[in-house]
């Protein structure tokens, strides 16, 4: 088919719970700015024609200015822009406040591919399978440079930064296959760092999960790393080792040697593995070597999953933590973490 005959769409597909409002916001701004642009344009053209120069020696009557008019066109744009700000901030707050009951997928960016790991260990490259109507939270980091996880159909985008975890979340509302782009320039094959997001009905998603040959669950693999990297030599149970015990740690507050308190979340655990001296636990000196360069980001994530799995049981974790305590070791049905009622709730919102 002649590509020039294809109709040009103006919006990507709306496939997440954010998409409709983002597009509505876009259209609102388009109408608003269009109105003012036309207003200025029409006024300018009218003045230009009406007051065109009629003789070389013409000197028009001078107008110094008009204070009331100046105040009017300062205050009106200000009030309008505050409204735009508020709507934008509200949407932004929703986009970057992940729910605590979401299905958690771990994403790693690496020049030039996207890797994803599902809660039970299923992995995929440059694809992301997600169930329809479930809240999905991505916890992301990069092995090398900065990337950005961009799904136009979901209207979500979050930079994937080496050295820290970033999160993105969404509720898919339409089955189908959508673009996944790297949006932050990352080197030679930046435009090749693309993939597909596949939204499936929940039963199809479960069937897909069963059919993917899976490794050990991240928590199991993390447990093995915990032993093979000799973490277990010092981090004994009941605080009897050289390092603090990691049992029942996740999500709790930790007292530090410098008197401060920090919540034992993913970012804290990650930092303590890669830079152990940064936040030493009260009562201990830092004898731990850094594991920087010895473990990949995926391995760090596995160890964190292991620490979570020996943490407080689900529900017992501090509810304030944005991150929920996840499934226990080797439990088969991954999306149990998502409340079964969630899909209906989301779909009602859509209707």
């Amino acid at each position, binding site marked *: 088919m002649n590509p020039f005959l294809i109709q040009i769409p103006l919006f990507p597909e709306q496939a997440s719970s954010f998409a409709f409002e983002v597009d509505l916001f876009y259209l609102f701004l388009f109408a608003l700015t269009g109105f003012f642009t036309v207003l200025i344009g029409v006024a300018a053209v009218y003045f230009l024609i009406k007051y065109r120069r009629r003789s070389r020696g013409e000197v028009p009557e001078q107008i110094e200015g008009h204070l009331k008019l100046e105040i009017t066109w300062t205050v009106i744009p200000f009030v309008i822009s505050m409204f735009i700000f508020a709507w934008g901030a509200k949407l932004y707050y929703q986009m970057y406040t992940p729910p605590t009951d979401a299905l958690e997928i771990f994403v790693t960016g690496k020049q030039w591919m996207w890797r994803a790991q599902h809660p039970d260990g299923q992995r995929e490259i440059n694809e992301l399978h997600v169930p329809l109507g479930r809240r999905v939270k991505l916890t992301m980091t990069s092995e090398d440079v900065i990337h950005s996880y961009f799904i136009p159909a979901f209207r979500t985008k979050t930079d994937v930064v080496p050295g820290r975890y970033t999160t993105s979340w969404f509720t898919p509302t339409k089955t189908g296959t959508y673009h996944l782009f790297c949006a932050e320039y*990352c080197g030679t094959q930046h435009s090749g760092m693309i993939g597909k997001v596949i939204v499936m009905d929940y039963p199809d998603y479960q069937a897909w999960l069963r059919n993917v040959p899976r490794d050990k669950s991240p928590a199991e693999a993390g447990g093995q790393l915990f032993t093979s990297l000799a973490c277990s030599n010092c981090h004994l149970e009941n605080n009897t080792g050289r390092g603090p015990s990691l049992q029942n740690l996740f999500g709790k507050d930790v007292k530090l040697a410098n008197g401060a308190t920090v919540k034992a979340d993913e970012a804290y655990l990650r930092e303590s593995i890669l830079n152990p001296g940064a936040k030493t636990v009260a009562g201990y000196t830092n004898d731990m070597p850094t594991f920087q360069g010895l473990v990949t980001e995926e391995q760090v994530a596995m160890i964190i999953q292991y620490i979570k799995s020996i943490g407080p049981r689900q529900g017992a974790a501090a509810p304030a933590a944005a991150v929920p305590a996840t499934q226990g070791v080797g439990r088969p049905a991954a999306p149990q973490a998502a409340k079964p009622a969630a899909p209906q709730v989301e779909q009602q919102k859509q209707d």
Partner: protein
Amino acid sequence: MASEDIYKSEGRRNYLNAATTVKSWLLTLDHKRIGLLYLFAISFFFALGGIYATLIRLELVTPEGDLLTPEMYNRVFTMHGVTMIFFFLIPSIPAVLGNFCLPLMLGAKDVAFPRLNLMSWYIFMIGGSLMLYTMLSGGIDTGWTFYPPYSSIYSNSQVTIAGVSIFITGFSSILTGLNFMVTIHTMRAPGLTWFRLPLFVWAQYATALIMVLGTPVIAITVLALAFERTLQIGIFDPKLGGDPILFQHMFWFYSHPAVYIMILPSMGVISELIATMTRKRIFGYNFVAFSSLAIAVFGFLVWGHHMFTTSQSMYTGMIFSLISYAVAIPSAIKTFNWTATIYKGSVSFDTPMIYALAFLGLFTIGGMTGLFLAALGLDVHLQDTYFVVAHFHYVMVGSAVIGFLGGLHYWWPKITGRMYSEALGRISAIIIFVGFNLTFMPQFILGQLGMPRRYHAYPPEFQVLHVLSSAGASILAIGFIMPVFYLAWSLKYGEKAGANPWMATGLEWQTSSPPPTENFTYQPVVTHEAYEFEHVPEIKQAREAELQSAQIRMVEG
């Protein structure tokens, strides 16, 4: 009035024919000649940046990456950005038109520090030569934003030399800014109070403020990057213990105000053009003057709006969004005031006015689309897509370059003493306006559809819009090439301009064209407010001539 002197001085010695040796140009301390030296230098870089742009648009005609290799494409778009921003846009209006006009507008013989002025040109040339060396020795592929850790550790290109080049070039900016500030403070002619200054001078002052305060930050930032790259000092790379987001904060702390280094002088030019071409004092002079300063100050407080998706804290994002809307207000005020100035004016449609109107249209669209990007929840979708590319081209090309071209056409008779072809001037301005919109309007739609920027190859559904954009770019190129020819033609064949061809106010029009080396043969004294057209002798003469011919007609009738 000294108008008698002006006409006698025609054909006498001027700054161009005062000395003609190469040495007299390369060692000149005359601000007008230094302005021209800058004009040659930045025209070269504009042409170079334009060639890169052509390669980008040619590559993007097809979805596959077929014309250039990925390595090549990444270098081309990086060099396009670096060349255009650091070696064309930032120096364009201040260093060329500012250098030429500022002392003339103030009624001064030169800038406060003529030697420093020449030195800043040499520093610019050293920085520019290093950038050329960078290009010839392999180029850089980091994007003009130089984000680490890609730029500091992973890129196999000439990042360090490019950084040194930008570091050096920055000093030319700082020295120019310093020179202008001191000149405006100390060298105004008797009677030329602050609120009698042309608005171009106010804009230059605000720009100089940003140059002096902002440029050191980019210098430190690229230096830190070079240290990390060469000495493995961990500043930005997390593997070395650094923080990559820190770089973005430092980079945008300069680079956002740098947008105002490009746009503020352009706004100043537009104020001059609209006042002269409508023979009206700019509506709300004080509001326009202070909005320049407000933009310069607020411009330093909004850098975080480039980083809404980088994992900076949500509340930080909200504060930056809020302040970004605050900085939009003074820009809106200026636009309303320019439009109101036309009201009850005496509008001429000479070439500079066509450029001013093109500016008004393109700047409005550029500013309005900025409202989309400052809106947090919407920016998440639009960030790093072609929507951003289109938006900043509307601001940087549609406004800054158009302002530069408008100013160049406006002061060309003063600079050279000759008029160019009015018809060709108007046609090229219209071609640029049409070509520009055809190039960048489709890119707004591309961005909204999700096409990421800096992509060498792209999914086929985006092709139609990319082809439209490339077609527009070829029209735009014609519009940019035309002035080169008719302006060059005017040097030899153009009609003699006379001192005040536009019948403008302002001291620069009270001396001969081209002006003598010392600018004025007498000490100008200012007795009027800015833009009082009833006192312009050329207008008075024209009016008297019209009255006489009307009387003759009445007698005959």
